């Protein structure tokens, strides 16, 4: 074959090429066509899903890091806050309370105020061991007690350990109920004491009963002062008034007595 003929073939439009393309009509089978086009379609689907997904691979790593960071900071802050709250309770007087659990020794003689678990005792009927408690045991507790005038001084006079326990114990429902019952009982004990003593000697005893409940002898005393005022015997009246004031310093008196 000459180079000229070959160059003409390479330029195209040769008779050989034309005849070949007229003859070559073969095509792949339709099944192969379908398989290839289906594969091309299938290959694009995961890619489209990955792009449309809100948690595509581009998002997962930064999102995970952000979540870990937020959780870590949250835990650190929480732990810091917790340690800050616990610090005061772990120091000073509170620490001594923690070291002495509320038991027989810490309450001491006032352990009788702890309600028993083996019996559901009715209100005001605790099993008390000392003499005062025995006395209380015999006297029912009035529901209409004098809780309005309840003060820290009263409770301290009854039981310092009780006050301590009331300060340190958490205000759970059970402990609150127990404290109220204990307070009522202590209050009543104090009233009883003052009553028994005031019946004997009228002087040198601080008034523990309310002002409205004057004893008959005191009412007689007031009546006597009033008569002395009317009779213009003021010196004697002042003397009796002084005695009365010692008993009832804040009892309201009218002008016929005070002059």
């Amino acid at each position, binding site marked *: *074959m000459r180079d000229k003929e070959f160059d003409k*073939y390479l330029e195209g439009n040769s008779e050989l090429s034309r*005849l*070949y393309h007229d003859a*070559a009509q073969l*095509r792949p089978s339709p099944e192969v066509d379908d398989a*290839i086009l289906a594969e*091309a379609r299938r290959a694009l689907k995961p*890619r489209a899903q990955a792009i449309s997904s809100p948690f595509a691979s581009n998002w997962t790593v930064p999102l995970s890091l952000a979540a870990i960071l937020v959780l870590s900071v949250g835990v650190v802050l929480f732990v810091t806050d917790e340690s800050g709250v616990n610090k005061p309770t772990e120091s000073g007087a509170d620490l001594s309370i923690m070291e002495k659990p509320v038991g027989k020794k810490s309450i001491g003689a006032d352990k009788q105020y702890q309600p028993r678990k083996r019996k559901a005792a009715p209100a005001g009927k605790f099993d008390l061991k000392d003499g005062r408690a025995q006395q209380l045991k015999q006297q029912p507790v009035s529901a209409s007690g004098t809780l309005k005038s309840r003060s820290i001084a009263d409770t301290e006079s009854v039981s310092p350990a009780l006050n301590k326990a009331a300060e340190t114990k958490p205000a759970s429902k059970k402990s609150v109920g127990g404290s109220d019952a204990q307070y009522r009982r202590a209050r009543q004990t104090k009233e009883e004491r003052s009553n028994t003593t005031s019946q004997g000697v009228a002087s040198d005893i601080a008034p523990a009963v309310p002002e409205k409940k004057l004893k008959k002898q005191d009412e007689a005393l007031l009546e006597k002062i009033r008569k002395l005022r009317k009779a213009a015997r003021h010196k004697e009246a002042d003397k009796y008034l002084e005695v009365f004031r010692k008993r009832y310093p804040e009892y309201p008196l009218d002008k016929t007595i005070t002059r």
Partner: protein
Amino acid sequence: MLSKQPDEDLMIEYRDGNEHAFTVLYSRHKGGLFRYFYYQCSNASDANELLQDVWFNLIRARERYQVSAKFTTYLYRLAHNRLVDYYRRKSNSLPVSYSDNYEADCETLVADNSADPEIHMDIKKQIDKLLEQVDALPEAQREAFLLREEAGLSLEEIAVTTGVNVETAKSRLRYAVSKIRKQAQI
């Protein structure tokens, strides 16, 4: 219009998710690629299988596709590699025609055949004869001819596609064209 876009643009569009671009690309090249395999294997079933393998490989490799050469060169390079695998699996070696000096050894034979008397044949007979001659060509020469006719590759592109130098590619094609012309009296 996708049908007027170059092959390279269609392949990039398919890489980026346009399914229709692939359909256009496939319809352009499915016939030529099928015939490339068909004439090399002389078996429609094998040709269909090889064709499917090549397109599947193209689909899997789409994300790595970069326009560094003509798409046709890229496609037929894949086809050539698959064909070489096919030959090696079938006979554990490449056909003799793929040896470097095969065309030189056969040159005399072709020249001898050119001494045949002039026989005028009608066009149909010419076509049948042509296809017979294509089928009768040695594999390497036939491949060069098919790459030229079916894919429209230049000598340089045929050389790149088949992994040989340009002279070898030219020699193979020249041998194929000369033999067909003489045997088919074109």
